[in-house]
């Protein structure tokens, strides 16, 4: 009998299980660095707190009386709480994970929470690894990561992971995760437009370009990577399935871009609110 047959089958497991098992375990202990590391003279302080504490937002509590069809109740629970500071480096990492309270294991709500948490934690882990490497190098660096509930309406629960990394320059990027409370599933752009027959990529992209031109007309200081012959294929042409988006508290679809993606970095992150006619 082939002694590796079952082992080979294990090699085909879902990527998220491979990644999830390699994440550093969350411990209620002090920060650990390689023992061989020696810190430069002049380090002022080292703080590390890793605490698991329930964190229920008051807005979420108010919706308890109107449980959605899925029967689960989403909330954020502190997952990683870490601060670091020395003479030329500082970090503030306060990341919460989504908990689908009341959801059965394997249900859509539990799976949505698990996938979202995996993505947020992978991003956090990677940035923390890069920061820790920077601490051992010369120069200045800062890291700031936090989570917020952007929307907690009757229909949608939206979590935002905000990341800010600063070395020579600062770079801000946000990641949005939208859950449909009626199904418990994480919403994708594709799923929002499912059944409409709309070429949503083109419709949304055209609307974004229209708003860009309108904004520039109203205020010439607002420039975008659009219609610029010097930029060539760097001009914004189209969104993709992985473009960031979320549903805001007013129920509007918002398309979000990181700094520098569709406009100069100096203009910061960019958001475009879609008219309901495009997607409803």
């Amino acid at each position, binding site marked *: *009998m*082939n*002694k*590796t*047959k*079952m*082992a*080979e*089958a*294990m*090699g*085909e*497991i*879902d*990527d998220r*299980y*491979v*990644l*999830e*098992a*390699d994440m550093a*375990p969350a*411990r209620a202990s002090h920060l650990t660095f390689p023992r061989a590391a020696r810190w430069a003279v002049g380090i002022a302080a080292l703080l590390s707190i890793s605490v698991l504490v329930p964190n229920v937002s008051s807005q979420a509590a108010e919706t308890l009386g109107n449980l959605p069809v899925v029967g689960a109740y989403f909330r954020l629970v502190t997952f990683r709480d870490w601060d670091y500071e020395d003479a030329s480096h500082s970090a503030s990492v306060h990341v919460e994970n989504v908990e689908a309270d009341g959801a059965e*294991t*394997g249900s859509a709500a539990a*799976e949505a929470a*698990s996938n979202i948490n995996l993505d947020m934690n992978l991003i956090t882990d*990677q940035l923390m690894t890069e920061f820790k490497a920077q601490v051992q190098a010369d120069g200045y660096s800062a890291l700031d990561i936090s989570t917020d509930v952007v929307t907690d309406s009757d229909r949608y629960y939206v979590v935002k992971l905000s990341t800010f990394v600063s070395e020579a320059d600062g770079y801000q990027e946000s990641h949005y995760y939208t859950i449909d409370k009626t199904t418990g599933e994480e919403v994708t752009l594709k799923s929002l437009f499912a059944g409409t027959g709309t070429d949503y990529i083109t419709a949304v992209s055209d609307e974004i370009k229209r708003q860009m031109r309108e904004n520039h007309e109203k205020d010439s200081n607002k420039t975008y990577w659009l219609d610029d012959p010097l930029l060539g294929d760097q001009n914004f042409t189209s969104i993709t399935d992985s473009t960031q988006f979320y549903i805001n508290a007013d129920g509007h679809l918002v398309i979000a871009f990181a700094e520098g993606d569709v406009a100069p970095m100096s203009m910061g992150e960019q958001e475009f609110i879609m008219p309901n006619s495009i997607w409803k």
Partner: protein
Amino acid sequence: MRDAEIIELYWKRDQRAIRETQNSYQRYCGRIAANLLASYEDREECLNDTWLNTWNSIPPQRPDSLKAYVAKITRNLALNRIKHDRAGKRSTGEADASFEELEQLESFSSDSVEDQIGAKALAGEINAFLAAQPLEKRKLFVRRYFYFDSVQDIADRYDMKESTVKSTLLRMRRELAKRLDTDMGGIR
């Protein structure tokens, strides 16, 4: 460099992709190879083949996770070496222990069934099994049977007793075996 940027380098056929992949995942893949292969030379060859295989497969592949992608390549390459090792000397002791534990799951099948059930079908069942597990138990199972960590390493990693790790894995194997027997018994 982020994974998405490295993958773009592959697609542009920029050989910096190989260096960036090594920088990011040399240690990670090295650990997988070391858990499976006893000799240093085998591990080095396995890693070199990993970078080459990755270069040759992206494009057309565009993995969502480069990390998981190279992990699976390293793991498969190492398993292939073990599979074709007639002397039975290439694998580590811990890998052999894991294989024996997994072989317990194969007791549900006859030889004819074994011929019919490919790795993909088994993988589907294993994925469904893992999806139904609580997060912490799922991690134990994957660390043991995907990464081939020793029981001691798993116990240290998750701050558990070795006996607890062993008994948890045993219960999980029994649960998976029961599932395979139920779900795949119809193939006979």
